């Protein structure tokens, strides 16, 4: 069978193939698209690596003896230490890319116009990934993760009304032997369900593509080559983390087994959860903490409407961009403040940085964008 007959056969069986081939062979893409546009693809690739390493980990993980099973993976399983390192460094790379994507979106105002849907989807993706990351952290069975889980399940039992019902349903009761088993299933399910969101965003992102311009090009080989470069650089950074800094952003106390009788001195979460952990100080109590985190993410969802300027994406004034950079520094500072030893200064700093975060979105963004629109 020659190649034309093969193509005709596959097109008849699966008509999408013909559509995709036509799209691939028609030059439709603008030139000079920046490397950072490859971030969504890099995130997808990282999610694939996380899913694969997670699958291997799941074969050996035992939610009824979590610490022992993680030790087994690291010490007894062939290349188990490498798989675990891939999973942990993969998480670091994933959240680095996601935070970079969010930062870029806020800086360039990519949530405007046709990019609004993609922005909402991206924030949803980030939120789901943060929840998945927290669940994965709980699964490690370490001292700090155990303290965090105990706190969460116990406070969930005390909430009144509907939130209490939902929280109790989520955890299946106070912390006990079966809690990690259900969280492990949730972690895996969310990790796979995220791919649906990724596919959704992939199609939605087509609406954001710039106009092809005078000399459009095909995806292959031009952008295939560019994506290859991006993947290789990303893999290089990933390798540096996985092999030379496998415990980046991890609290060393988490290497000890969970013990309900001992409260860790410094219960810092992993780096990607640190800003969320810090923002909890704004409102009192455990319930207040959850509301603060939800508000933090909610403001990101509301950004297209908080931005009062009607200027299209990629256009913003100097003051707005400066404020966004300050916001990024503020979030980083929030993370560091959470990582400090608990002290009065640390808490005051956390409150200051957290209030600036809310101030930026609720006050500064509408004001500055309205001003610059004129």
């Amino acid at each position, binding site marked *: 069978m020659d*190649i*034309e007959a093969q193509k005709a056969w596959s097109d008849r069986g699966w008509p999408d193939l013909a559509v995709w081939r036509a799209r*691939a*062979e*028609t*030059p439709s893409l603008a030139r000079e698209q920046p490397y950072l546009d490859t971030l969504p693809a890099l995130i997808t690739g990282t999610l694939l690596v996380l899913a*694969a*390493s997670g699958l*291997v980990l799941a*074969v050996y993980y035992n939610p009824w003896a979590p610490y022992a099973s993680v030790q*087994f993976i690291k010490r*007894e*399983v*062939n*290349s*188990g230490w*490498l*798989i675990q390192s*891939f999973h942990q460094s993969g998480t670091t790379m994933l959240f680095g890319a996601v935070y970079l994507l969010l930062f870029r979106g806020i800086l360039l105002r990519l949530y405007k116009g046709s990019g609004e849907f993609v922005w909402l989807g991206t924030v949803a993706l980030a939120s789901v990934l943060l929840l998945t990351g927290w669940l994965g952290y709980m699964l490690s069975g370490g001292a700090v993760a155990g303290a965090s889980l105990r706190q969460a399940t116990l406070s969930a039992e005390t909430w009144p009304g509907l939130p209490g019902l939902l929280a109790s349903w989520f955890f299946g009761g106070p912390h006990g032997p079966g809690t990690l088993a259900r969280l492990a299933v949730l972690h895996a399910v969310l990790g796979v369900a995220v791919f649906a969101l990724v596919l959704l965003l992939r199609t939605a992102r087509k609406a954001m593509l710039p106009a092809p311009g005078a*000399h*459009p*090009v*095909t995806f*292959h*080989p031009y952008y295939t080559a560019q994506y*290859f470069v991006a993947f*290789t650089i990303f*893999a290089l950074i990933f390798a540096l983390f996985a092999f030379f800094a496998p415990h980046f952003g991890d609290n060393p106390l988490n290497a000890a087994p969970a013990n309900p009788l001992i409260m860790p001195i410094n219960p810092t979460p992993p780096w990607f959860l640190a800003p969320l952990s810090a923002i909890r100080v704004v409102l009192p109590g455990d319930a207040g903490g959850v509301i603060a985190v939800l508000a933090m993410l909610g403001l990101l969802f509301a950004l297209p409407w908080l931005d009062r300027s009607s200027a299209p994406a990629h256009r913003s004034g100097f003051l707005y961009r400066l404020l966004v950079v300050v916001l990024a520094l503020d979030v980083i500072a929030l993370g560091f403040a959470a990582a400090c030893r608990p002290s009065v200064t640390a808490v005051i700093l956390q409150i200051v940085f957290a209030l600036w975060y809310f101030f930026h979105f609720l006050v500064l963004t509408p004001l500055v964008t309205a001003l610059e629109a004129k």
Partner: protein
Amino acid sequence: MAGTSEPTDAGLTSEHDVGSRRDFLTILTVAAGAVGIAATVWPFIDALAPNADRNAVAHPVIDVAGIQENTGITVMWAGQPIYIRRLTKQQIADSQNVVPDSLPDPASYSERTKPGYGDIVVVVGLNTAAPCLLLGNEPSEPRGPLDGWISACDGSVYDPLGRVRRGPASRNLAIPPFTFLDKAQIQLG
């Protein structure tokens, strides 16, 4: 991408016009990328392979130096009881004197023992007819008329080499795969 109907935009060049240098570069890059992907995939496959722990369970080492003559030990392996017994000289002589063809399941002495370690018998301690345990390994259990093993449920009689002599059973006791590491140690599997 076959050249069916290539748009002839001014900015596009077909891959075939280019000098061989880019083809070599592209091939080298793709090949290197493939090597990288293979090297990354390998640990995932290796991690699912049996590890040292499983190997220890799959191939346990049993110490047989402590087994006295005419006594046996029972070891659980692969979900089955394995009977290891040390024979007396009389039992060895009697076994060698039996004509193999006269047995329900012909087997000679040399087929049932390992050369050089002729006084150790290793068999799976399950009756080959009606499924039940064999009696005769514990000192308190009856051994049957031939001082070997006897089946508790259907009365099949086995000799000290594990060959069936009488009874509903018609096949000798199974021999598990094993090797002698030295005079004192057997590795199963």
